[in-house]
């Protein structure tokens, strides 16, 4: 894992003290809320429906056991004994006191973490593939590149006041586990003739105007990547709309300009930027990459797994994924117990996951955009021990990518922007499909729920998506089908009139049963939907 150098630590420590002074001035009445609000947001501190909420950055979703344990400590000491892992691979605390915030940020800084750029119109936390460094199908480890982008984008003076927020994802596999093309910029690292580079997709996003990012460059050499991204951002910063927040994202600019014209302008800007020498020298890239060297794997470990315990065997089948290193596996910890709150984990559960990472996982964890946790480097001989510990803590849910592995935003239970509650709907759907055998029979089904059009719950990318709306003061839920955030990316389409809280659960079940009735061998829900078309499903849903 990357470790801060003296510059990283110095700027984070300085920011803590700067914010401590700002908080004191606000509490002492030397600043109004209007003056203070942009300053607290720059430090990830929102004021939500019930209290202050602090969003902590987890760069590319990667953290150590020590960092994870600090997240548990903060939940226990400063919050209400739990945290909420988000679709940006971050964590949010829902009950933070303003007067505690400087101490929390100091605690975070002590383990090389912060809450900088988790809000505001800047480049947000870089997201990546949660299997980075462990996946057999990656052409390179995306983490060094994500780290380089973190350093480039942190306090980037030119991009601190963009027209709107800006999200970047980096992957290095054809299988897209990071919803890469639904980001403002999506990078897919690729090899061409032995040279590492990236396909660059720009202008994707969800929100009220979902768009799939078009390919702006089919190959940018790694040596040119920062300059090219700088050019992409510069064109956006110059021409992105600032008169209307709803039309200010880069996807709107590219939609209005057209991808060809945007590509031309970026090329023109790139020709200039490349003369500025911002791409890092090879030595710096090697310095960063060295932090992501493979762990000291044991050689000669067996790939055999004792499957005599049926519950363990189901968990292995569903939550454990293939690793590029013989004898090792990738463990997915689902934070989606039936009836639970998607993405929530208690302080004790967070501590346990930190312990397991330190004992059995080369001290590394990942947060996924699906609000789960990954231990990317676990020896297969330790799987049963890990499972037993997770089971005792209530987080051995064997439902990864199944219908109960639901992404849900905090919704109206916590969020001041939301129009409807998301979590209760997720809970009711999970309870409806609680039968494990039925879930496994249904197979892969990505169900995603947002409580407003901002789409933090990624409903546009759900095989089944649910959008909560306010219909004359009453919660109403629209159903979408056919979305995907994976390499077969697509935007879901609304089926028809919305439903109330119970009606949407019934509608989901009717859609699922339609799939089971007409699927052919090997088809997932999304495959069947694409084959038979929307009308057939609409008929099943609405009669």
């Amino acid at each position, binding site marked *: 894992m990357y470790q801060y150098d003296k510059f990283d630590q110095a700027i984070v420590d300085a920011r803590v003290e700067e914010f401590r002074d700002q908080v004191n001035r*606000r*509490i002492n*009445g030397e600043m109004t*809320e209007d003056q203070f609000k942009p300053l607290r947001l720059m430090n990830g501190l929102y*004021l939500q*429906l*019930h*209290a*202050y909420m602090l969003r902590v950055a987890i760069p590319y979703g990667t953290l150590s056991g020590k960092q994870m344990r600090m997240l548990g400590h903060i939940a226990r000491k400063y919050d*209400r004994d739990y945290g909420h892992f988000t679709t940006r691979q971050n964590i949010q605390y*829902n*009950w*933070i*006191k*303003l*007067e505690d915030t400087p101490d929390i940020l100091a605690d975070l800084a002590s383990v090389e973490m912060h809450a900088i750029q988790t809000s505001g119109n800047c480049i947000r936390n870089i997201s990546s593939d949660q299997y980075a460094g462990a996946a057999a199908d990656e052409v390179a480890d995306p983490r060094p590149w994500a780290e380089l982008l973190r350093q480039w984008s942190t306090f980037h003076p030119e991009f601190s006041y963009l027209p709107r927020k800006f999200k970047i994802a980096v992957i290095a596999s054809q299988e897209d586990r990071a919803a890469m093309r639904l980001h403002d910029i999506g990078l897919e690292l690729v090899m061409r003739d032995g040279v590492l580079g990236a396909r660059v997709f720009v202008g994707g996003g969800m929100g009220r105007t979902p768009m799939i990012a078009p390919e702006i460059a089919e190959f940018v050499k790694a040596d040119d990547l920062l300059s090219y991204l700088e050019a992409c951002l510069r064109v956006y910063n110059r021409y992105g709309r600032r008169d209307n927040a709803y039309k200010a994202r880069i996807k709107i600019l590219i939609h209005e300009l057209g991808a060809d014209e945007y590509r031309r302008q970026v090329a023109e800007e790139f020709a200039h930027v490349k003369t500025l020498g911002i791409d890092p020298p090879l030595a710096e890239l090697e310095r960063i990459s060295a932090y992501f060297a493979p762990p000291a794997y044991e050689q000669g470990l067996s790939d055999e797994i004792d499957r005599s315990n049926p519950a363990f065997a189901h968990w292995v089948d569903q939550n454990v994924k293939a690793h590029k290193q013989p004898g090792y596996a990738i463990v997915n910890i689902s934070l989606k117990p039936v009836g639970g*709150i998607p993405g929530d984990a208690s302080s004790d559960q967070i501590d346990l996951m930190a312990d397991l990472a330190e004992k059995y996982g080369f001290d590394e964890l990942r947060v996924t955009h699906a609000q789960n946790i990954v231990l990317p480097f676990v020896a297969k001989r330790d799987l049963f021990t890990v499972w037993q510990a997770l089971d005792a803590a209530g987080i051995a849910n064997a439902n990864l990518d199944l219908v109960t592995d639901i992404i849900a935003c905090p919704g*109206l*239970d*916590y969020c*001041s922007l*939301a*129009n409807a*509650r998301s*979590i*209760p709907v997720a*809970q009711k759907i999970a309870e409806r499909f609680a039968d494990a055998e039925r879930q496994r029979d249904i197979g892969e089904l990505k169900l995603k729920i947002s409580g407003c059009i901002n789409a933090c719950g990624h409903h546009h990318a759900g095989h089944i998506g649910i959008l909560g709306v*306010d219909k004359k*003061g*009453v*919660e109403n839920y629209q159903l979408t089908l056919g979305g995907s955030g994976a390499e077969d990316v697509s935007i879901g389409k609304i089926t028809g009139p919305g439903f109330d*809280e119970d009606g949407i659960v019934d509608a989901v079940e009717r859609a699922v049963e339609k799939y089971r009735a007409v699927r052919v061998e090997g088809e997932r829900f999304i495959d069947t939907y694409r084959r038979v078309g929307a009308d057939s499903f609409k008929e099943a849903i609405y009669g």
Partner: protein
Amino acid sequence: MKILTGNDLKTGDVIWWTGKSWSRHIGEAVDAGDNGEAVLAEESAAQRVNAAYIVDAAASPNGPLPLHIKDRVRAAGPTVRADLGINPDVPIVKG
């Protein structure tokens, strides 16, 4: 009726205007009538409340009940964590 809500500056707690001060319990909220804006201006300037606003509400046996679900959830706490709410008697879905 018009009731007033905001957050405690230091703790972030949701608070309601009682006519004399601020309470965490919506049952103690009073109708501010036409004085809402004036009260908010004075209380905000004195830093006794943060991010305050006026809420449309109706009288009920348990005290004022916000008309909009968002403010009812705000009053009650997260509906999915009853253990964290401080006004569990507020009916959420139907006023």
